[in-house]
């Protein structure tokens, strides 16, 4: 009897510590096989971050004109960048909430097949970080690129100082982290909620 229990414990343990590499593999596969859906989700993140970075990049170029106008313009840009952040957050949350919600049934099914709650959360964690990272890097680079090109064409090449380059680098880096983090946050709460539901409830969700 005791050997039996030991045997069972060992097997349960093996199941609990389903290797990270396996979860990573399933997540990658999951992004790949629903490529078009992933692309749409990612474009939500991409556009949000690109918009935010574009506004912030514009702020790296000093405004010209009388002092009062400069202050007004800077205030406007600050507002715009806060709005951009809000739009970006809403966009990402919306995309990820949909992406998790439409998979409630899949989550319920996986639990019927013996998946642990933590494994399901792990899957969504990896998926959201990968998706968030790729979309945010691309979004930051492209948002920055377009605004910079427009200013260059406007003859502002003299503003491309070391300060500008340093600011750009910092902006792109921070925005990438921000986008990835927002994607992760927007995914993980609905994923935890779905994973903790009794399978019967998750399976019943219709969208």
């Amino acid at each position, binding site marked *: 009897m005791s050997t039996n229990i030991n045997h*069972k414990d060992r*097997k*349960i343990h*093996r*199941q*609990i510590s*389903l290797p990270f590499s*396996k979860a990573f593999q*399933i997540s990658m596969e*999951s992004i790949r*096989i*629903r490529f078009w859906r992933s692309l749409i989700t990612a474009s939500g993140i991409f556009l949000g971050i690109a918009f935010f970075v574009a506004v912030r990049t514009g702020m790296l170029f000093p405004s010209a004109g009388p002092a009062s106008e400069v202050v007004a313009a800077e205030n406007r840009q600050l507002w715009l960048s806060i709005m951009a952040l809000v739009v970006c957050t809403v966009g990402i949350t919306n995309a990820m909430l949909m992406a998790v919600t439409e998979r409630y*049934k*899949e989550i*319920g*099914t*996986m*639990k*019927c*097949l*013996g*998946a*642990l*709650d933590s*494994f399901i959360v792990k899957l969504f964690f990896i998926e959201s970080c990968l998706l968030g990272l790729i979309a945010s890097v691309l979004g930051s680079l492209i948002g920055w690129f377009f605004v910079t090109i427009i200013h260059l064409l406007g003859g502002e090449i003299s503003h491309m100082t070391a300060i500008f380059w340093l600011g750009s680098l910092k902006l792109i880096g921070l925005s990438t982290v921000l986008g990835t983090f927002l994607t992760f946050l927007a995914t993980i709460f609905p994923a935890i909620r779905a994973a903790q539901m*009794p*399978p*019967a*409830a998750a*399976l019943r969700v219709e969208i």
Partner: protein
Amino acid sequence: MASNEYVVRTKGLVKEYTMGDQVLRALNGVDLDIFRGEYISIMGPSGSGKSTLFNAIGGLDKPTTGSVFINDVDMAQLDAQELAYLRCHTIGYIFQTFNLIPVMTALENVTLPTVFAGMSTDDGIERGMELLKIVGLGERFFHKPSELSGGQQQRVAIARALANNPSIVLADEPTGNLDLKTGTEIIHLLKKLNREQGVTVISATHDLKMVDVSDRIVWIRDGRIAKIEERAEIELHIGEMEGEQEELTH
């Protein structure tokens, strides 16, 4: 065949759903003992509590009161990990809507439970192919569910349910979305697995074709067991029913 060892026992099972200030009793004191190796059909009108009983026996939902014993283990005593282990190894689930993972191929769907069981990829694939052959889909392993007919999807689901050699297969209206002929094939496949592999089959159903193959039929009504019929008792009217079905098919 059926032994005298219990594989599933329920005691005073009650399930209440609360909606606002209304309480609905979907199960109202169900005591049911099922022997290892039996083929059981749970029949009853729509809304009588068949799916609710399916969820309780399968550990997919917690009963309000009462207990479910699987192989003499009280399901309420299991922690989350043990429950996942039970779902993985002891019970195989089959649904009316098949519930295959749409983005995965037939083989990947069948292999998934072996991943959760900690089986190596190679062993899992070997097991998956073997099962797909058993259900008669050996050649179509690389197809996505959307490329398969309803009957074929249900065969994949049956193969998936058997992936980790469960002692119980639980089915909720497995023929509900299938036509008469395909439904009959699925029923015979389940019966074959029941006979050859000794797996206990418990199926909630409206489908009178199930009567032919069942060892016992549990009739439920308003969340209670109305009667339990043994195969021997019903053998008499099977002739009539088959007659009716013949007429339907022709």
